[in-house]
């Protein structure tokens, strides 16, 4: 009898106090994307934009006019207090369990307290380290309102699928909160974040396929947004941008990334009126660093497999072996030029490297103290860098040498 009473007491105690973390799923408002801006009113705090999913919108037989997401902007000290402030008008309990991306306006990213905001967000358990970090040219609140994907009804799908594209084409760094925080706190190089805009600017007149910043692609129809290139962060503060082409080169120069599917065009080496299109795979990149000199000596060697996709000039690069080796040399030279151009820019302009070469440099030190004394970030700008490129032409598509156009005209 005593035992049952004790058991009953314990049980009721547990029942009465045990479920304070219990939630009912229909009461939850799932924030899919967070936007951060400089405050629109006053100096302190930030403007926070929540894109909250509206679950019933996509459901058959329901109100089809409702939006998939509800976008709400408010000024608050930080994203967590903004949750409660949202409840002044909205019914749902705001959570970040399924937040896929965080969009930050360039303005805020360039301000001093940006890194504090970011790292303090990680204290909250709901914030995940695999969120994507995007920097928008305009205000994040405007960007999020203008982001209307053509194919995906809901933004979470948009970022899910986009990140898979990014992995392949390397036009943007596939950077997450984790990468961003790690690179910033390691304090050895630059951190890259995805650069984007939803307002199209004056289209850039270029023959290249990747040398754009967001907004510069001449495109009509579909979604308004353009995600290409990177925002460059040094010591937790945005200091510049990189075009899509530069991002590609930077990722190739990294030892670990090895982008697989880079579709590129270059001027035809024999007939410069035309461009030649190919698909490059960065098979391997070797970085060796000597830290015993006064300034580091870095040797980078890159290997590419290239599949030629289109030869509009109709010059025979396929069966004519001398042309083939000419093409190969040409590619190697092109890659060399791109790489040295970017390296020069990082040494002169950014004074730090986005290539994670510090990972190779740190191997050369026995203790952390020695490594910190060497100060990779400081020594990089004066480093001597040697680049080598090795191209293998692996495929020419399913056609042999193109047919001469003059023969057809006859």
């Amino acid at each position, binding site marked *: 009898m005593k035992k049952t009473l004790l058991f009953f007491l314990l049980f009721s105690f*547990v029942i009465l106090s045990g479920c304070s973390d219990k939630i009912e799923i229909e009461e939850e408002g799932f924030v899919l994307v967070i936007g951060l801006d400089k405050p629109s009113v006053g100096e302190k705090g930030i403007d926070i934009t929540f894109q909250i999913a509206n679950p019933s919108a996509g459901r058959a037989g329901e109100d089809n006019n409702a939006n998939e997401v509800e976008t709400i902007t408010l000024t608050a000290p930080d994203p967590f207090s903004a949750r409660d402030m949202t409840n002044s008008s909205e019914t749902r309990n705001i959570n970040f*369990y399924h937040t896929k991306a965080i969009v930050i306006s360039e303005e805020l990213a360039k301000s001093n307290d940006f890194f504090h905001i970011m790292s303090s967000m990680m204290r909250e358990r709901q914030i*995940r380290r695999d969120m994507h970090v995007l920097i928008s040219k305009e205000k994040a609140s405007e960007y999020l309102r203008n982001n209307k994907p053509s194919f995906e009804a809901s933004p979470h799908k948009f970022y899910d699928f986009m990140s898979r594209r990014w992995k392949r084409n390397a036009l943007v760094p596939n950077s997450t909160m984790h990468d961003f925080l790690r690179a910033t706190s390691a304090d050895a190089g630059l951190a890259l974040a995805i650069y984007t805009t939803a307002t199209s600017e004056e289209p850039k007149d270029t023959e290249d396929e990747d040398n754009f910043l967001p907004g510069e692609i001449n495109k009509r129809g579909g979604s308004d947004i353009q995600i290409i290139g990177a925002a460059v962060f040094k010591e937790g503060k945005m200091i510049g941008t990189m075009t899509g082409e530069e991002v590609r080169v930077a990722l190739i120069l990294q030892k670990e990334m090895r982008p697989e599917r880079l579709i590129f065009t270059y001027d035809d080496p024999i007939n410069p009126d035309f461009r030649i299109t190919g698909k490059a795979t960065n098979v391997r990149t070797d970085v060796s660093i000597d830290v015993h000199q006064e300034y580091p000596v870095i040797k980078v060697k890159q290997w590419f497999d290239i599949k030629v996709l289109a030869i509009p000039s109709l010059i025979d690069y396929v069966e004519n072996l001398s042309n083939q080796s000419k093409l190969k040399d040409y590619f190697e030279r092109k890659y060399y030029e791109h790489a040295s151009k970017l390296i020069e820019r990082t040494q002169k302009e950014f004074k730090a490297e986005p290539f994670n070469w510090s990972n190779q440099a740190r191997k050369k030190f026995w*203790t952390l103290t020695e490594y910190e004394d060497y100060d990779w970030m400081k020594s990089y700008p004066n480093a001597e860098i040697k680049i080598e490129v090795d191209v293998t032409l692996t495929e020419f598509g399913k056609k042999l040498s193109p047919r001469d156009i003059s023969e057809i005209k006859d």
Partner: protein
Amino acid sequence: MIKPTDRKVGTREFVAIILLSMGIKFTDMTPTLLYKETANAAWMVPILSGLIMFVPLLFLLKLLKFYKDKNLIEIIFSLTGKYVGFLLGMCLFLSSYSSTVTNSRSYVDIISTMFFPNTNIIVLFLLLIGSSYYLANRGLNTIANTAWISLPYIKAFMVIGILMVTNQVNFNYIFPIGGYGALTIIKNSISYSSIFADIMFFSVVFPFFKNYESFRKASLIGYALVIFELVMFLTIYIMYFDFPGIENITYPFQEITRAVRLGRFITNIEAVFLGFWSVASIIRFSIYLYISTAIFAYSLKLKEFEPLLLPFGLLVILLGYLPENFIINSFQIRGPFVLNMTSGFIFSLPILLWSIHKIRGER
């Protein structure tokens, strides 16, 4: 031939207990403490600490071999006499019980911070210690068998977890390999060697094991595996978080499980890890509770200690509830006090006992 009393803990079951009770130390704040002190080289600390603690373990095994059916407390009593024996027994009890209290609090803090922020920690404590008590109350055999059954599932899931983050880790982050230098590593290896002190406590319930041979074999196998496991996880942590980053991560294991993804569709499965990890921790605290109570009862020469399990379990909750937050618990109490104090005591006790034994034996 069929006698319930014949049932004793065998080699496999004991290895399972060791692996579950000591092998999940990498899931609490121990790694963070280590990385704070030794930077990138923290993964070497378990190897050195393991070697250091191996010395008293050998002495202890020699003693146990000599005194066949006696448990550690009885050996202490017969070697040092009534009063010193009691004192040593109580010291042993205090060190094991205090580590039970602080560790369980630290586990409850993990659960509370990472999964149940709004729930009163008393409730979480109650479930953790309650289920540990349930297991402990059914005896050492039950704990051992439960450990043996759950071991493959827990470890398989851990391995899956590791495999699934390997594409997100960078091997180069373990460099510079020396951390803050060899001296720091050695110093910390000594002061944190009590990570492996638990292995000594099992000798308190030595008569419950099948025989000396299986006890020795299981201790050594389990010990080696635990060191390997700790080293593996510590390296995974540093390879994922990189050095200055890991300093700020309170619970690296829980944080890394959040990164585990099985392809595109199965993501965010940290709650599943919570499940497996809770199974391991409940088994861990049941053996802690069992052994602490056993030490206490043997020191007082009580015949039955099972009735003491319930009050001792409740006391764990009460004492564990005292520290204000996990920082006080982990950094001020558990780190310097419990870990370092017990290090020295546990290290010297077997050597002391063995020398007394030698002196007396030669006399």
